[in-house]
């Protein structure tokens, strides 16, 4: 009953356009005042502070800053040129370039909208020029950008790791196989559509051109090597990797590509500050909500009620997928993670689901959520760039959403797909 009322009030507040972070705070405040228990509004004030001090979350502002620096320092254009020289000779190559670049680039910064804008404004007009329909160009850009949510580094994974208290490194590693598999399947679908619609090759294969574009993109390519190589090899932690990413992006942007000047740097940093404030206020108010929900024992009651009906992990996973898919249609990714994960974690643990496995499921659901209106910021951004209608683009997007759904089912029911590589970390 408490969970039902909490959900209704929260949805009501969000529908009247109260910022989601504040809506969560208001529900927490009301809950603490109205339900009997030890916690008071003094505790809420303390929770609002301590909720923003979780050490793993320090990686968030730094990855956001590094991502924004990459967005503005010409790194995206160089990556596009290199990937285009490498795989552009295949039929439908520009679509594949789009997918390849998104996999490297997207979801690093805190704003999926800014990431899609950075690559989409270069690739979508070019795709339209080469005969891609505007809906197909928008659909490829949108779905590949969303898949990138499970390819490290990923802000949603850091948020999940902090809330579920699991290793961010393990989450990053667990995302690799599903991410690469999903990218490969998206490329396969694009190839099939390219044959069907007789789409052209982006450019002929020329080894000299590949070499030239590689030299141009060399420093841009060192970014993922520095970030992921450093983190996966255990040389640095995720937070330290984020710090190094900032340093590398600064050095590349200022001294090598020389695309960053003081005014642009200031603008990029302020964008990062705002994105950090948006995500982290959600985290902080959700700590207050957690205080209320724990006092009312909501997560424990939910786990108990569901496990009384079934303890079959397959059924519980299906229910959780359904819940996350519906929520993903109406909530932004970070908000959905922050709201759902603390409530369902006791249930996840009770039926013996690995929290790392569940983390990849959560992020994949959010990837699909970014493609499904009404709240589908990545899809809407792609549509705005391509100047295509949301519903027509959604139709063109169906095969790509099908790929994301297939990967979700694969990850859900074959845990080894996400967990196999994490075994090598011990």
């Amino acid at each position, binding site marked *: 009953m408490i969970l039902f009322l909490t959900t209704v009030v929260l949805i009501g507040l*969000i*529908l*009247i*356009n*109260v*910022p*989601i*972070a*504040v809506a969560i*705070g*208001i529900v927490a*405040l009301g809950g603490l005042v109205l339900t009997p228990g030890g916690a008071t*509004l*003094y505790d*809420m004030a*303390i929770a*609002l*502070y301590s909720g*923003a*001090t*979780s*050490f793993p*979350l*320090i990686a968030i*502002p*730094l990855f956001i*800053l590094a991502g924004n620096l990459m967005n*503005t320092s*010409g790194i995206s*254009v160089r990556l596009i040129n290199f990937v285009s020289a490498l795989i552009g000779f295949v039929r439908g190559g520009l679509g594949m370039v789009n997918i390849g670049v998104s996999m490297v680039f997207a979801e690093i910064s805190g704003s999926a*909208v*800014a990431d899609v*804008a*950075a690559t*989409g*404004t270069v690739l979508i007009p070019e795709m339209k020029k080469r005969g891609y329909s505007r809906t197909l160009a928008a659909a490829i850009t949108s779905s590949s950008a969303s898949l990138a949510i499970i390819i490290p580094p990923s802000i949603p994974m850091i948020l999940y790791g902090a809330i579920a208290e699991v290793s961010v490194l393990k989450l990053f590693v667990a995302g690799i196989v599903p991410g690469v598999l999903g990218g490969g399947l998206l490329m396969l679908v694009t190839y099939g559509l390219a044959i069907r619609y007789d789409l052209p090759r982006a450019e002929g294969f020329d080894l000299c051109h590949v070499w030239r574009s590689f030299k141009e993109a060399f420093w841009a390519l060192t970014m993922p090597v520095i970030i992921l190589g450093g983190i996966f090899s255990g040389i*640095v932690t995720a937070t*330290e990797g984020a710090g190094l990413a*900032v*340093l590398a992006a600064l050095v590349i942007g200022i001294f090598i590509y020389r*695309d960053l000047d003081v005014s642009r740097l*200031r603008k990029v*940093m*302020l964008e*990062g*500050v*705002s*994105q*950090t*404030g*948006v995500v*982290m*206020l959600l985290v*902080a108010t959700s700590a207050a909500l957690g205080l209320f929900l724990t006092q009312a024992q909501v997560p424990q009651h939910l786990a108990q009620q569901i496990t009384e009906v079934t303890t079959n992990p397959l059924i519980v996973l299906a229910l959780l997928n359904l819940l996350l898919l519906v929520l993903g249609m*109406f909530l932004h990714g970070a908000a959905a993670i922050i709201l759902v994960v603390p409530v369902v974690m006791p249930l996840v643990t009770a039926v013996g689901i690995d929290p790392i496995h569940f983390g990849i499921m959560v992020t994949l659901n959010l990837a699909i959520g970014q493609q499904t209106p009404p*709240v589908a*910021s990545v899809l*809407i*951004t792609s549509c*705005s760039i391509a100047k295509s209608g949301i519903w027509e683009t959604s139709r063109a997007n169906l095969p790509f959403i099908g790929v994301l759904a297939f990967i979700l089912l694969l990850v859900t029911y074959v845990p080894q797909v996400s967990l196999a590589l994490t075994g090598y970390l011990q």
Partner: protein
Amino acid sequence: MVATIEKLLLWLIETICLALLVTLALAVIYSTTMRYLGASPSWYDEIASVLLAWLTYFGAAYALFLRQHMSFGGLVTALPRQAAIALALLSECLVIGFFAVVAWYGNAVLAVAKWDSLLSIRWMTLDIVQSVIPVSAVLMIIGTLLTMPRALKNAAEGIDADHAEIEHAIAEAERDNADAALKEGHK
């Protein structure tokens, strides 16, 4: 007068946020370097967490001045003008009310927090550290009041903040691409 106050406050918050972000980045890079030199700084975990909390709240205040917090404006903007304005006003009042409570209780707990201090910097008592809650809450109330006329006007005109953000991001990216192309041309 109101515009000048808003500009001044925004400049102040921007400056604080930039200082916090740079300090946090430097602290992480310094600590990583020192760890490899075998002399990890003992203050790192605690100070970095405090910096994150401060960046969270001043960053949130900055985002509120710019009206960039995540929200769902689809329903309000689809309503008739009068209903949209009424709901937008209700939403603004709820935001102000929430931050007023946070400011009040955030300030009240400082009386207890002053008897404790950081472990790594003993002179820095926790009331200084946790003062970010009431200070930022007051800033967010002021930010809401200063930007309320624009929010109500947008609600009346059916402008969705999400769409405005998307248009802004695309325009920014197109400008960056044009700059990059111009530079390539010069080379």
